């Protein structure tokens, strides 16, 4: 596992070489056009066209059997008065802040602690990273065992004399959402750590050297050298986190299905159950559009950054 860090991004840390361009005035050959068009067509069939349809379906009432009936913005006005939807929206924001914020803090903190090569670091990195390779469903089942009545969580509380706190963690509306966020965080921190380790690796050591010569202490170097240098990685991490948060579905579905009484319902789970369990396909599409609008701002930010220095 000691290879974990040095491997972190030789290829991209090398920096862009001068762009080599072929100067040919003539049109690209048919083969090249096919190289682009075939993948583009595949993505169009399975992504672009469905996305457009999704917007249209959100303006319809549809049970999946009869053809959809156009009802304008009816679904959206219904959403505005739907308490379950509002709860899911609030939970999604809580998810975004807690899951997103804590995984950035945790991942960054771990990356700072583990950036320097020293004995044991490879093992610690590997330990934190291991859950990242598991599916969220595997993660969910691991933690379900932990949360079981008389499971590890309860045993630990009993051991430290806090048994009055014991409750059915996933079945109590007060705790269900947080009991689901915890395993999601457990898995995400290792991922964010790897992103930051790559970013830290790419910082020119001469900058730290210069700051040290100028008498900057560790905290000042973190503030004035490391953090400004990580601006690019920060933008990516934030985008990834927001997109991941809005997509979060698996772990909630595996642990609580959004219950009890919608207390751990996210927009993504509500959308799925509205569409595929209540068979309200138009209404489900409208929830999906809301998720899309929330994600849009982030996606645009990400793309602008990705293409600023791009050909």
């Amino acid at each position, binding site marked *: 596992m000691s290879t974990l860090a040095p491997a972190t991004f030789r290829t991209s840390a090398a920096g862009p070489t001068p762009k080599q361009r072929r100067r040919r005035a003539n049109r690209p050959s048919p083969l*090249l056009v096919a190289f682009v068009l075939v993948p583009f067509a595949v993505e169009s069939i399975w992504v672009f066209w469905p996305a457009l349809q999704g917007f249209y379906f959100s303006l319809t009432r549809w049970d*999946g059997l009869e053809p959809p009936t156009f009802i304008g913005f009816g679904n959206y006005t219904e959403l505005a008065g739907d308490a379950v939807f509002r709860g899911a929206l609030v939970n999604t924001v809580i998810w975004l802040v807690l899951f997103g914020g804590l995984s950035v803090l945790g991942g960054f903190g771990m990356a700072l602690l583990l950036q320097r090569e020293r004995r044991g670091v490879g093992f610690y990195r590997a330990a934190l990273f291991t859950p990242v390779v598991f599916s969220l469903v595997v993660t969910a089942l691991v933690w379900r065992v932990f949360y079981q009545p008389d499971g590890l969580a309860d045993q630990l509380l009993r051991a430290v004399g806090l048994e009055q706190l014991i409750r059915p963690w996933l079945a109590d509306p007060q705790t269900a959402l947080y009991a689901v966020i915890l395993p999601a965080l457990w898995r995400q921190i290792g991922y964010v750590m790897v*992103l930051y380790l790559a970013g830290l690796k790419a910082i020119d050591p001469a900058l730290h050297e210069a700051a040290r010569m100028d008498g900057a202490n560790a905290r000042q170097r973190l503030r004035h050298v490391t953090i400004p240098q990580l601006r690019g990685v920060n933008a990516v991490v934030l985008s990834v986190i927001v997109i991941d948060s809005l997509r979060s579905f698996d772990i909630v579905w595996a642990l609580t299905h959004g219950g009890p009484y919608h207390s751990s319902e996210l927009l993504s789970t509500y959308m799925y159950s509205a569409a595929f369990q209540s068979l309200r396909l138009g209404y489900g599409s409208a929830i999906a559009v809301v998720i899309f609008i929330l994600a849009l701002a982030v996606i645009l930010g990400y793309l602008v950054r990705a293409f600023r220095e791009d050909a």
Partner: protein
Amino acid sequence: MIRALRTGAFHTGMSLLALLWLGPILWVVAMSTRTFDDIAAHGVGSLPHSFTLDTYRQAWTDGGELRALINSLLVTVPAVALSLVLAALAAFALSRYRIPGRRVILLLMLAGNLLPPQILLIPVSKFSELTGLYDTLAALIAVQVGFGLGFYTFVLHGFMRDLPGEMQEAATIDGAGPGQIFARVILPLTRPALAALGALSFTWIFNDLLWAITVLRTDDKMPVTPALLGLQGQFVSSWNVIAAGTVIAAVPTLLVFLRFQRHFVSGLALGAVK
């Protein structure tokens, strides 16, 4: 002295954290080897008082994990291969030639991958019903390829763009066409990026739940991730069997990770430093 103390504190703290991360995993592995009677008598929170591997047999055959694993591989291997081939072709043409509108095409393709999948679920499930692909593994492969392509193309584009141009110039002068340049010059140089994306996309597709339950319905066709949820319903309070099923579902991605560790981590960071 202070240095030794600080090192000691570092290792103590990190060991505790590592335990927090590995502990739940080890607990589940231990649980998977306990008998039902042991769990019934001592509870899920107790240390093992028994040892059996029969739980694995139950999960493997009675729980249908064997079939689920086969389904997973039948989906994951072709989906990874197809995605990488198509993405490499697109990235090659877009990065090495002046295709008109190449920026917009690349941007659109990446944007497609960043879409929240929820907006696609209903149309994709209806489209696969319409084409007769609903409830077939082919539908799952197709949607995985379509949805992943944008990201893979974007990453490979960034990689190929930075390759030096001399060899391509030389090959062009020797009369090689784009097909030959792709296969003989660019593709061999792109191997590290392909390995990284391959390892990464394997775990993503293998671990997927949402697309599988959107385009598949029959239990027999479910890959291992959704099948694990089914197992939970089938063996409601047999925590040992559920734990064994969880271990089985986790092993393939863990093996890929251990085998391609370096590529895997570099793949995750590819997006970050770009």
